[in-house]
């Protein structure tokens, strides 16, 4: 069976150009970038070139980029690092209830250690009101962390507006841009952020490498101790092939960004507009316009998300759902519950995330298959009396 991949928000295939760029750094140019000899120098050179490419993607300076092992590590580093570096100033962090677990769980960890966290309200589309940020800031506030775009519902947050407020208040501002860096144009100066997390495998780069943008002068306590790699900010021999791959992926993403966004927006809207017409009791989760070009998140009432997702899988269509044992998360999505989606509808959610190799026929195929699956599941639903 031909598979249709519509889970690009989970991860993307590594671009073959990226793979080709990485290959020499396994067994030919395998030097340790800290070594002074020729092998070391070529590895260091390639790594710094990659740093430039990643920095350029978000309008940063090279030295403001710290490579990490993942987007999650970048989030952990941003939050724990600023929290512990700012302990003298205060202990208050502001974030949202719909952040990625990498941010939320780190906040919970910090809460257990005496930090206070404010979870801002979000509206029914998942949008944060920048004025709420202003109101939440106190003399004790050390960090605001609001994601650039939500990984589940695709809503794009008003980061630049929040950035103005945090600048005025003199509070650090972090954004998790794992879903946006390489997909939306980003300029850190325009966004007004001090810290920004990225990940390579969401932009056709390899898994296992991410980066944290750290605006010059941002004080951060390191939590990887050892050698002086990454200017002493993250000890560990650098993962040179992955970093080089990240750089190449960033370069390609930047080049193709606007054209790709336009293409994906068309396919996204085709999918969104095609679904509700065929299936009633369907809602689009997330903002109708201010959303990622590749994200479709719907709730189809009276059809279990888990069963829909698995049935799609058996038809070769790979999507994701807000709640499924298989995806490792058993509870209804905290994001959907966080934007006020009722429990039953949160359990009946499906996310399609599109990408570089998504073809229009694949969207047509989803529109053809899904209504049959929904009809089958609804026929079994004890909740649906009069369909």
């Amino acid at each position, binding site marked *: 069976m031909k598979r249709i991949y519509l889970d690009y928000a989970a991860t993307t295939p590594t671009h073959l150009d990226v793979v080709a760029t990485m290959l020499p750094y396994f067994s030919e140019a395998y030097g340790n970038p800290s070594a002074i000899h020729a092998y070391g120098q070529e590895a260091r050179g390639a790594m710094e070139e990659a740093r430039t490419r990643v920095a350029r993607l978000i309008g940063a300076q090279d030295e403001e980029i710290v490579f990490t092992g993942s987007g999650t590590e970048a989030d952990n580093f941003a939050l724990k690092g600023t929290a512990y570096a700012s302990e003298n100033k205060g202990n208050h962090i502001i974030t949202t209830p719909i952040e990625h677990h990498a941010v939320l769980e780190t906040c919970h960890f910090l809460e257990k250690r005496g930090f206070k966290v404010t979870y801002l309200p979000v509206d029914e589309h998942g949008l944060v009101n920048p004025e709420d940020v202003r109101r939440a800031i106190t003399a004790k506030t050390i960090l605001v962390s609001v994601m650039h775009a939500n990984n589940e519902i695709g809503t794009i947050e008003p980061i630049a507006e929040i950035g103005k407020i945090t600048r005025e208040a003199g509070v650090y501002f972090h954004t998790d841009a794992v879903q946006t860096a390489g997909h939306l144009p980003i300029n850190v100066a325009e966004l007004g952020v001090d810290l920004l997390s990225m990940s390579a495998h969401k932009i056709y780069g390899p898994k296992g490498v991410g980066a944290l943008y750290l605006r010059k002068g941002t004080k951060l306590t390191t939590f990887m101790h050892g050698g002086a790699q990454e200017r002493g900010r993250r000890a560990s021999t650098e993962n040179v092939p992955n970093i080089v791959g990240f750089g190449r992926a960033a370069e390609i993403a930047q080049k193709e960004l606007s054209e790709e966004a336009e293409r994906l927006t068309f396919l996204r809207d085709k999918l969104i507009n095609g679904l509700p017409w065929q299936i009633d009791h369907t809602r689009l989760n997330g903002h109708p316009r201010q959303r990622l070009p590749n994200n479709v998140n719907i709730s189809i009432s009276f059809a279990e998300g*888990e*069963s829909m997702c*698995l049935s799609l*899988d*058996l038809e070769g269509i790979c999507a994701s759902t807000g709640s*499924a*044992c298989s995806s490792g998360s*058993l509870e209804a999505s905290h994001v959907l519950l966080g934007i006020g989606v009722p429990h039953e509808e949160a359990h009946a959610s499906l996310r399609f995330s599109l990408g570089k190799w998504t073809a229009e026929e694949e969207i047509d195929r989803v529109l053809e298959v899904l209504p049959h699956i929904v009809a089958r599941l609804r026929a*079994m639903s004890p909740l649906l009396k009069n369909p």
Partner: protein
Amino acid sequence: MNKIVVAMSGGVDSSVTAALLKEAGYQVIGVTMQIWPSNKLPDENRFGGCCGIDAAADARKVAYQLGIPHYVMDFRDIFARKVIADFCQEYRRGRTPNPCIRCNQHIKFNALRDKARGLGTDFIATGHYARIEKDKATGTYLLKKGVDRDKDQSYFLYPVTQEQLSHTLFPLGDFTKKKVREIARDMTLPVATKSESQEICFIPDSDYPGFLKAFVPQAARPGLILDEAGNTLGRHQGILSYTTGQRRRLGISAREPLYVIAIEPAENAIVVGPREKVFGSEFTAANLNWLAILRLTKPTAVKARIRYQHQEAEAIVSPLDEYSVYVKFTEPQMAITPGQAVVFYDGDTVLGGGTIDPVRKEVM
């Protein structure tokens, strides 16, 4: 190609079940049932058992090797409502339940079947050692013992319905456990040498008293150990630690060995007596399910099994009313335990079964 859902626990039996069906040309979908919270961090969660995360990981390995899709599906709500609630309620009543039977009845052959329908198939298979045969003359589906008499699990399956039997496969019913292990080895399934799970799957570390203490605190209160005349012989640490016929953990010195002969939840008391008092010949059973016959119309000679490890014995089962039967053994049997299942056999065939109640006064 026929699509079928195989309940995969990560053990040898269900793994071989999936493998055999795959070999026979079925489009096999492996499903591991998540029945108990185990998505928490390890330190916050001691619960897991046969259907926990480790089980899912083993099942996933097997499915990967077989090249079949594998899903972990969420049955926690219904398992808590139908199996654990019943388990706790029975202990509160001083009875000794069999949760595996409830799980088969409500979860595997019902909720899992629904999930299978959701995936577009009406058929499920499990790794039970039992056989299903269709009586050509009557069209009745017969539940029969597995060929391996030591492993036969028909006892656990008596509550299934005709309709469920007609949509179920037990591919291991014709094999011995030894043969199943051989098949697993020959196929180099990663679970070929895994040991047998004997524990109740939702009780972590087989800590029965710990589990019941947490979930049925009223059954963990200390109380009195009495003899049949009502004399106090000692104290117990909660009725949850006792079942009929039990000799251990009484802590009473007496001239002859003493056994639990009754549990009185209303008095929070354990009644003990000499060995002969543990034997009984008669009881009633309710919650009946008949498989090979439509209903019981007259006293019938059967072989009756009153717990999984019991050597079935000759008995006469007679209808009492619409909902219950009276059972009289030819020879007295050890520890007829309220809450356990009684299953009636005619040779290899399961006639039906029910839940054991104490003998009612009016029929004594």
